[in-house]
């Protein structure tokens, strides 16, 4: 399984961050900061990043901190 926000997406071999975004109805745009198990995934690598079973994604629309 992949955890994203409060949703659980079933894991399948080769599933990418872009696939998960599609499934939760989210668009990837440069202002969304995505963390994978606490670490930031750079925007430029988001589309093709292949996930592992048990991964947790978080989305933070950060442009300036607080």
């Amino acid at each position: 399984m992949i955890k994203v926000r409060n949703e659980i997406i079933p894991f399948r071999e080769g599933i990418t961050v872009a696939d998960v975004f599609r499934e939760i109805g989210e668009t990837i745009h440069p202002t969304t900061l995505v963390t994978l198990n606490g670490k930031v995934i750079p925007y430029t690598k988001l589309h093709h990043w292949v996930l592992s079973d048990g991964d947790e994604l978080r989305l933070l629309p950060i442009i300036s901190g607080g």
Partner: protein
Amino acid sequence: MLFKLVADMTDLTVKKEPLDEAYYELGGRSLIAQYLIKNVVPTCDPLGEGNHLIFCTTVFAGTKLTTSNRMSVGGKSPLTGGIKESNVGGYAASLLAEQGIRLIIIKGISKTNDLWTLHVDSKGEAWFKEANDCKGMNNYEFSEQIHGKYGSKIATVSIGCAGERLYKNASIQVSEFRSGHPSRAAARGGLGAVMGSKGLKALVIEKPDERHQLKYQNENQFNEACKTLNDLVAKGVQNDPFHNIGTIATIEATGANGILPVDNFSGKLFPEYRKVGANQFMENLSSRGGKNKIPCQPGCMVRCSNSYHDEDGKYLTSGFEYETIALFGPNCHIADLDAIARMDRLCDDLGVDTIEAANTIAVCMETGKIPWGDSKAALDLLNEMLEGTDFGNLMGQGCEAVGNHLGCKRIPVVKHQSIAGYDPRNTKGTGITYATSPMGADHTAGLTMGRAFDDCGRTAQAYASNKLQVAMCFADSMMCLFAFTHMVPGIPLLANLMAGLYGGEADFNRIATMGVKTILTERAFNQQAGMTIKDDRLPDFFYREKSPATGAKFDIDDHELNVIFDF
């Protein structure tokens, strides 16, 4: 017609005049840059007669665009010695927009030792009132007193004892919508000291009996674009942790990768970071009667603000933010959210920048003046600023002054201003922003985390910093950045807003030009003030020391920093 107030502290006169035509299509950061370059000699003494203190609203203030009622404060900074724009939420800009006032200029210096407040009353009249009875009064007491006297339909913009004592870390505090707590800070660069130098304790702005009506050149065009942009924000906030939790949620993105500053920017990880993270924060809110999702200004859809209560369920602070938590927390090896909240409250009350104050404490820990992680000792030091002891007065001069006094070799400042809550080795584009922003080390000027190929790598970092610094210049001229984030997919529509309100073509070049022109003007001001390319560098230790968390150093070539604004 829009108005400006020109207040002269020397003879205590206030004139209400039509806003200059040239300033109509400017607001916030862009207006401050253009005003200061024309009216303030860059080499002037920031605490002398020649400096002006500017308060202004944004280019879309008074419209339905969410968060467009943000206030910018500007002047020559006593901390950096360069140009400074510091923007802030709260209720004041909404009321100024309702008054039809875009700009307030405070000139000159009071000839006597008296202290004054500048009132803008419900009839739209502006006048000075002697405020000697408020001398030495801090922001919470002041705001309560004024709200008690004038009711809830007012906003205060005030300084505490730090501003009166001309501390270079002094903030200007703005009261929050509804609660009236003076917890929103125009914190950076010591503009509170500029206000204090003029003898001005506060602005008190009343809600006008009659709301000013903006004149649109094409109201339909504006409303259509505005609705689309507001809808983007409304949709975006549903899953926005800043809305659902608060800006403290940023710790979830910085804590595990060395971006969160730890032990005076040592570059290490802080295993206990979750103790000062979102879950602990939410748990404390729900068990003690605190609250999040509070709008600091009317009509904000993001509502990132909060009200944080102590262990006894009593109000402690509000607008309790990531930067404050990161820098008083892990960067001082402190993992106690309540202690950090007390520090935040104290800083808001006496009126100092939490970023500057927290870095000062970290430098005190680094040099052994107080032990790492000792929150009581940290609070005691902050209390020295409140009491005005010799060391407290030195702390009021900022982190660099204290670091030099204590012989610290690792002083985290750029242009004499403390670095914000992101380690520049592990988000290098942010490091480039810290180094090159005309504002000094300022994360709001262009936080690149996650934008380049690899936060610890070099590729595309200067590109990301440059793009964001320009975008932040125009965003800070229009609205709150946290709402702006959600509008990015509809960014070309900002041109429709401009055309709908002010006429002319809906051409995005108008927006981009505003950004580029602002940053170049700010740099020109700083150059005329005496800054050189050498001021566009990070402290040496970031180049020398590897971050133990990632192995990264700040290895951006000087040339990249030198040419970043060669458009």
